[in-house]
């Protein structure tokens, strides 16, 4: 059996329903089979099993997790199980009453995404008029006793407004900002050509972030996720497959990474049929790319193999059809040309998520 580390973090995708239609959504393009959502009782069991496995943090995401009416009950259960809880939301359903319930349940951290710092572009990307209400939600939550992060997914359409996004967070008194270049999975992969930032945007963006970090040291933490299509080495996806992270989808499917259903050659098990612990330890899908023994060259003999973990399995599969290939984002990959070609911006229309 392969050595399975203790998972530290559980992503609970409570529902894929969402009132927004962002074209970079990481949810699967094929959503129909996730409509049979886990019940409150089933989520509570998942949280108990995760805590027993050693998980310390639960992240509640979606879709839009606040569409689940039992969210506060689930958060309260996470707290009882000793888990730190984080809510990743578009924010507009968090009125004072809902916030009261969630904070009383022990919610530790809220992350709210904005699509851009300016209303017109933000609403265009979200496919609906929500930006103004998001700003109200951010103001309301910043005044409460809960950690708050403002998130923004960066892509070609909003990259030039990166400095304004940081300024918006500063104006709202938000202490933590996460700026993540779009990762190409789900709807974002379908829209890759239209979302791909330009090299100039990527370079300018890094410089803006460095300067802002320096200027705001001690007042604002800026997490920046680089554009891996423009780097030399791949991102160490999930810090290694089946090593620290678990994702449970709305219907109970257990994944090593939220994008993993893209890998059609794997079949994933469900918490309705097996315990989380058995799936984590024994399932073929979790063991497929655990550790380094599955690697082929150039990863197998690479000195970075336990740093990059071969990069992203999902990206390897999406681009080469082989999930065990070196992530083409690595300059050492024989398929690296696929990434280089994809850097060329193309004027294609954005397809809104349905």
């Amino acid at each position, binding site marked *: 059996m392969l050595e399975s580390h203790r998972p*530290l973090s559980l992503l609970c995708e409570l529902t894929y329903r969402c009132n927004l239609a962002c074209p970079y959504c990481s949810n699967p393009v094929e959503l129909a089979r996730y409509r049979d959502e886990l019940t409150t009782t089933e989520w509570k069991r998942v949280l108990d099993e995760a805590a027993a496995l050693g998980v*310390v*943090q639960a992240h509640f995401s979606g879709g839009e997790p606040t569409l689940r009416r039992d969210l506060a009950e689930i958060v309260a259960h996470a707290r009882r199980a*000793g888990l*730190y809880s*984080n809510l990743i939301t578009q924010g507009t359903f968090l009125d004072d009453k809902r916030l009261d319930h969630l904070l009383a349940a022990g919610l*530790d*951290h809220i*992350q709210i995404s904005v699509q851009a710092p300016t209303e017109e572009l933000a609403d265009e990307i979200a496919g609906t008029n929500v930006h103004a209400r998001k700003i109200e939600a951010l103001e309301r939550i910043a005044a409460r*006793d*809960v*950690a*708050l*992060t403002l998130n923004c997914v960066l892509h070609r359409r909003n990259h030039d407004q990166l400095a304004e996004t940081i300024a918006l967070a500063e104006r709202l008194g938000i*202490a*933590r900002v996460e700026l993540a270049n779009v990762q190409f999975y789900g709807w974002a992969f379908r829209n890759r050509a239209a979302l791909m930032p330009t090299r100039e945007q990527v370079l300018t963006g890094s410089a803006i972030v460095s300067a802002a970090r320096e200027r705001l*040291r*001690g*007042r604002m*933490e800026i*997490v920046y996720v680089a554009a891996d299509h423009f780097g030399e080495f791949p991102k160490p996806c999930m810090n290694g497959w089946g090593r620290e992270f678990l994702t449970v989808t709305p219907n109970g499917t257990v994944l090593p990474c939220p994008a993993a259903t893209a890998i059609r050659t794997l079949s994933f098990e469900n918490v309705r049929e097996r315990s989380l612990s058995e799936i984590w330890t024994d399932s073929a899908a979790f063991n497929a790319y655990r550790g380094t023994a599955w690697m082929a060259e150039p990863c197998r003999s690479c000195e970075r193999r336990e740093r990059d973990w071969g990069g992203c399995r999902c990206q390897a599969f999406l681009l080469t059809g082989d999930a065990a290939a070196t992530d083409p984002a690595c300059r050492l990959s024989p398929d690296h040309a696929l990434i280089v070609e994809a850097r060329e911006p193309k004027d294609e229309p954005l397809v809104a998520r349905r």
Partner: protein
Amino acid sequence: MKPEARPTFGKGVRLRREPDGTAMLLVPEGALVLNPSAAAALELVDGHRTVADIVTCLVRAFEIGEEDARSDVGSLFDRLVERQTLRFL
């Protein structure tokens, strides 16, 4: 930092003891595994004790020199304040 400053955890920060005795500081999107001396100092953080109180407690508990305790606590707290994990009242 002033000896009379009273440290408290930032929003969304929780100290957690594992069944095996190791301590972790849970922060937004992360967990910092603490060494025993950092864990001992942070367990005394409650928004009431001052930095000087915490140093005194550590000197007694671990039978270490006051200078060493003051410098260890100072550098730990400085690092945590910079990342907003800790703040002073």
